[in-house]
């Protein structure tokens, strides 16, 4: 078999058998989930309590006719329009430590995609203390525009953090599609690297 075929089959086979949790389905979570769906991730677990609002459409993977819908249901529908074979569990809940442990316990990786930093700290503490064997891929620092080269990934054990770790959203520094999308795709890229290994090592 040629390397190209082997690679395609191996990626499909490896990713098809994995489960990734998406904690929050806003700008980071919706775009990261779609990227993971497009590469054939077998099972996604989505959690978010919120509804789609018109203001979300500047960066989140929803459409105008979905305004008012539960985000997890709208995202499930959008992903199934890309690939109907992906198994999706959609939880319309506000996550707390107990729900995180319950909903994401079987995941091969968890993507932190909350908006508020207090929630980011809450999931970091929950996963690092109670589920330390599961890689947690966080997003921190993505507001505004430009400064591509400030966006980076740092790793400490099973904890990964993508972003510039400084630009916080505010009235003068909104979250916008390009930079949020970059960080969301960085998170998806880290998930692939963890689960497939580094480039060129699987065939």
């Amino acid at each position: 078999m040629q390397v190209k075929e082997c690679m395609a089959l191996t990626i499909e086979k490896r990713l098809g058998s994995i489960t990734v949790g998406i904690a929050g389905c806003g700008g980071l979570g919706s775009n990261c989930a779609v990227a993971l769906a497009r590469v054939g991730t077998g099972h996604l677990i989505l959690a978010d309590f919120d509804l789609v609002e018109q203001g979300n459409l500047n960066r989140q993977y929803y459409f105008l006719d979905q305004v008012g819908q539960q985000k997890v249901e709208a995202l499930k529908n959008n992903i199934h329009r890309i690939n109907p074979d992906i198994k999706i569990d959609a939880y319309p809940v506000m996550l707390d430590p107990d729900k995180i442990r319950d909903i994401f316990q079987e995941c091969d990786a968890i993507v932190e995609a909350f908006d508020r930093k207090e929630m980011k700290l809450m999931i970091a503490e929950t996963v690092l203390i109670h589920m330390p064997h599961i890689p947690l891929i966080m997003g921190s620092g993505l507001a505004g525009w430009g400064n591509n080269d400030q966006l980076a990934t740092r790793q400490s054990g099973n904890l990964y953090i993508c972003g510039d770790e400084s630009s916080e959203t505010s009235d003068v520094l909104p979250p916008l599609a390009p930079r949020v999308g970059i960080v969301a795709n960085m998170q998806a890229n880290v998930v692939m690297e963890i689960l497939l290994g580094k480039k060129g090592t699987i065939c």
Partner: protein
Amino acid sequence: MFLIAGKTYMRIILNNTEEEIIANTLTINELLRYKNFTFRLLVIKINGKLIRKEEYDTAVVRDGDNVVVMHLVSGG
């Protein structure tokens, strides 16, 4: 640890960079002040172990320790 001009220094790794600090030991809060870390929400590990916010006044950084400080800011 080592002495320079009568002062005790410790050498730690902070975010992958070697740092020499004039002290025998420091608590996490002392280290944050010393390094002027002003972010309110952080993920901090000493030698790979998570230090919770409630422990910042009691968790101690010693000579040879590897300390990781990650910044959490809102946006997603």
